[in-house]
C-alpha cells in the first residue's frame, strides 16, 4: 500500500507540471462519409463468360453500382463520382495510391475483382481506410452467377458493419401489398422484392383482397390476411413451395397477424360479435390461446424480441392507444399518453423502442417511443401514413403513405417510404405499382 502511494505521488508530480490541455469536441458533421467505390475489375475472359450468362456487359461495374447505390440510399455514405478516380480498378485493388484517393476526399475506398471460376461467380473485395492508409477488411465470395445482385448486397452489409459498428440490412427483402386500380375497387396482390426494389415478383394474382403480409424470423414464411371466398382469415404462405393454409379454425374474421420471435406462433386478432381480442396459435401443436379479454377493440399485436411481452393497440380507454402486456396477457399497461390516437405498435429488433402510427389533428405521424412510453419522437408527418416495419438492424423504418384524392377524384396513390431512426433520410421505395403494408425480412445471409 505504501509503495502504491509513493508511485502515485511520483506519477502525479510530472503530470502537474504538464497540465495537459483538454478540448471537448461535441459536434461534428452529420454529412455522409465520402466513400470511393472503385469498379470491380474483371479479366476479359471472365467478362465475356458473364456477358453470355447474365446478359450484362460488365458484371464488375454492375455489382459495384449495387454497392454504391446501397451506400447512397443508406444516407450514411456519400459515394464519390467515378469520373474523379485516378487509379485503374485492377491496380487499386492490389495497392491503392492513397494520396490519389485522399485528393478526391475519399475517406474509405472499396476495391475488388470479379472472376469466372468453375462456372461460378467469384467476387473479392477490399475495404481501405484512406486517411490511415490501411486495409480494413478483405473478403471473397463464390456463388452461382445469378446471385450477383446478392453479392453486391452482402458486400454492402460487410462494409456497413465495418464502418458503422452495427449489422447492415442490404441483403434483405420486402414483402408488401401491390395495389392497382381505382380506390373503390382496388386490386391487391402480395408482392416480394429485394430491399432495393429489384426482382419484384407477385405472389398472388389479385383475385381476392390480401392485406398485411409479415415475414417469419427466417423470412421464408409469410402470414397475411386474405379475403379468399369472402372469408377474411389469417393465412400462412411458404414462399418456397407456394403452399398455403388457413391459420386456426375461427368462426369469424381473423386479422392483424404476426409471428412470434421464435417463429413458432402466430399472434393475431379474432373479431366476434363486435369485439376483437388477441389470440395466439402454436404452429406445431395447433393450440389456440386467448390473450386479451376486454369488450373493446384489441388489435395490432407485436411481440418484444425476447418474446416476453406483447404490445398492441386498444380503444379500451375510449380511443385507440398503445398498451404493453406480458406474453400471457397479464399486467396490461397503457404506454401512450401523448395527444392524439396511437396505433400499430411494432417492437424494434433491438428491443429498446416501439415504432407506432399516430393521428393528431388530422395528421398522421410515424414515431418511436421507449417501451415504457417515454421518449416519444415523431419522425415524419403526412396526410396519411401508417404501418412501420423495422429493418433487421433496427436503424430504418419502412411504412406506406397515401395521398389525398383531390376534388376531381384524382391524386390518390399509395407508396412505400423509408426513414432513418434519426428522422433523416426519408425516401420513397420505388415499386412497379402502388404499394402498402411493407414488411422487412431478416438478413438473408449472416
Amino acid at each position, binding site marked *: 500500500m505504501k509503495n502504491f502511494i509513493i508511485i502515485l505521488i511520483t*506519477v*502525479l508530480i*510530472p*503530470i*502537474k507540471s504538464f*497540465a*495537459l*490541455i*483538454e*478540448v471537448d*469536441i*461535441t*459536434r*461534428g*458533421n452529420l454529412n455522409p*462519409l465520402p466513400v470511393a467505390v472503385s469498379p470491380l475489375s474483371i479479366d476479359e475472359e471472365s467478362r465475356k463468360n458473364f456477358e453470355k450468362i447474365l446478359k450484362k456487359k460488365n458484371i464488375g461495374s454492375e455489382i459495384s453500382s449495387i454497392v454504391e447505390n446501397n451506400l447512397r440510399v443508406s444516407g450514411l455514405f456519400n459515394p464519390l463520382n467515378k469520373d474523379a478516380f485516378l487509379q485503374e480498378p485492377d491496380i487499386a*485493388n492490389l*495497392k491503392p495510391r492513397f494520396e490519389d484517393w485522399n485528393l478526391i476526399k475519399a*475517406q474509405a475506398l472499396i476495391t475488388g475483382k470479379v472472376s469466372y471460376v468453375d462456372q461460378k461467380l467469384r467476387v473479392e473485395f*477490399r475495404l481501405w*481506410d484512406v*486517411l490511415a492508409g*490501411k*486495409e*480494413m*477488411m*478483405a473478403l*471473397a*465470395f*463464390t*456463388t452461382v452467377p445469378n*446471385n450477383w445482385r*446478392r*453479392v453486391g448486397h452482402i458486400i454492402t452489409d460487410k462494409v456497413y458493419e465495418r*464502418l*458503422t*459498428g*452495427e449489422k447492415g440490412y442490404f441483403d434483405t*427483402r420486402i414483402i408488401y401489398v401491390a395495389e392497382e386500380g381505382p380506390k373503390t375497387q382496388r386490386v391487391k396482390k402480395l408482392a416480394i422484392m429485394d430491399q432495393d426494389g429489384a426482382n419484384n*415478383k*407477385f*405472389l*398472388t*394474382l389479385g383475385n381476392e383482397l390480401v392485406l398485411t403480409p409479415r415475414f417469419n424470423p*427466417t423470412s*421464408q414464411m409469410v402470414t397475411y390476411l386474405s379475403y379468399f371466398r369472402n372469408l377474411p382469415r389469417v393465412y400462412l404462405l411458404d*414462399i418456397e*413451395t*407456394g*403452399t*398455403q393454409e*388457413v391459420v*386456426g379454425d375461427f368462426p369469424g374474421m381473423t386479422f392483424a397477424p404476426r409471428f412470434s420471435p421464435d417463429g413458432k406462433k402466430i399472434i393475431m386478432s379474432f373479431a366476434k360479435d363486435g369485439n376483437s381480442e388477441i389470440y395466439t396459435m402454436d404452429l406445431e401443436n*395447433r393450440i389456440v390461446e386467448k390473450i386479451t379479454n376486454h369488450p373493446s377493440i384489441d388489435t395490432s399485436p407485436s411481440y418484444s424480441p425476447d418474446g416476453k411481452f406483447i404490445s398492441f393497440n386498444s380503444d379500451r380507454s375510449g380511443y385507440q392507444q398503445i398498451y404493453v402486456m406480458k406474453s400471457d396477457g397479464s399486467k396490461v399497461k397503457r404506454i401512450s399518453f401523448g395527444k392524439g390516437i396511437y396505433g400499430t405498435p411494432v417492437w424494434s429488433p433491438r428491443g*429498446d423502442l416501439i415504432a407506432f402510427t399516430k393521428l393528431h389533428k388530422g395528421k398522421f405521424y410515424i414515431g418511436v417511443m421507449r417501451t415504457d412510453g417515454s421518449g416519444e419522437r415523431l419522425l415524419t408527418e403526412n396526410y396519411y401514413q401508417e404501418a412501420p416495419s423495422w429493418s433487421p438492424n433496427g436503424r430504418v423504418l419502412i411504412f406506406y403513405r397515401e395521398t389525398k384524392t383531390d376534388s376531381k377524384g384524382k391524386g390518390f396513390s399509395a407508396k412505400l417510404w423509408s426513414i432513418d431512426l*434519426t428522422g*433523416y433520410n426519408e425516401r420513397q421505395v420505388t415499386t412497379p405499382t402502388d404499394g402498402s403494408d411493407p414488411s422487412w425480412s431478416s438478413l*438473408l*445471409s*449472416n
Partner: protein
Amino acid sequence: MSLPFLAKKPIDLPPIVSVELIQITEKTNIPFAPKAKKIIEKVKEKEKKLVSEQAPPKKVKKIKPDAVPMPEDKVKKVEKIKEDKQNPEKIDNEVKQVSEFEKEELFDPNNIAALIDKSKESKAETLKKNPDLSQDQNKNFENTGLSLSEEDALKAQIFGCWSIPLGLPYNENLLVRIKLELKPDGSVTKSEILDHARMNKPGQGFYKVLAESALRAIKLCQPLRVPSTGYERWKELQLNFDAREMLEG
C-alpha cells in the same frame, strides 16, 4: 382441429415464383413440395451455396501484433491469396465464412494498434491508468489553457472534419479521448487513444468505429489551427470526442 389446405389453383400462385425464390432461402432446410423439389434439386446440382472467405486467410498468423504492414508486404499478400483461391478446398460452405469473418474481427485490434501509433508512451500509459487525474489537475491550471477564442477556432476546425458515424447507438457512452503531440505549425506527430483497451471489449464494436472516425478527423484537419504563440502550453493536447449530443438530438 382440421386445417383446410388450399391447393395452388384456388390461390392462383404463378408457379414460377416458388422456383425463383429458392436461392434466397436456400440455407433453410424445409421440406419442399414434390413438384418444387425436383426443380430445386436440379438447380442445386449446379450451384453451391454462397461462399465467402477471408481473402488473406493466413494473414492472422503471419503478422505480429505491432507490425505495420508495408506496401510491398501487401502486394505479396494479394498474390498469396490468389494461390489460395486456386485450391478448391478453400471454397467451402457458409459455416466457414462465419469463422473466417470472426478471425478477421479478432485481427482488427492489431490494425487499430497500428492506426493509433507505432509506439506507446509511458506517460500516456499513466494517464490511462488515472483518467480522472488529468481532468482534476486541469482545473488547477485553467489560466494556462487555451483562451476561449483559441479553443473555439480549434473546435470549429475539427467540427468540420469529423464525420460522426450516424449508425452509432445513441444511448451508449460515446466518448473517445485522444492525446496528441503537435509541432509548432499544428501538424500532429503522435496521436493516441487513451481508452483504447475498450476497443477490444466484446459488444463495444461501435467504440472502435467512433475512435476510427475521430482519428480520421484529426488526419483530415492537419495542420490543426493552433495559437500562433505559447507552443509550450499546447504542444501536448487532449481532444475529447463526444458524439452523444449530436446523436441524441
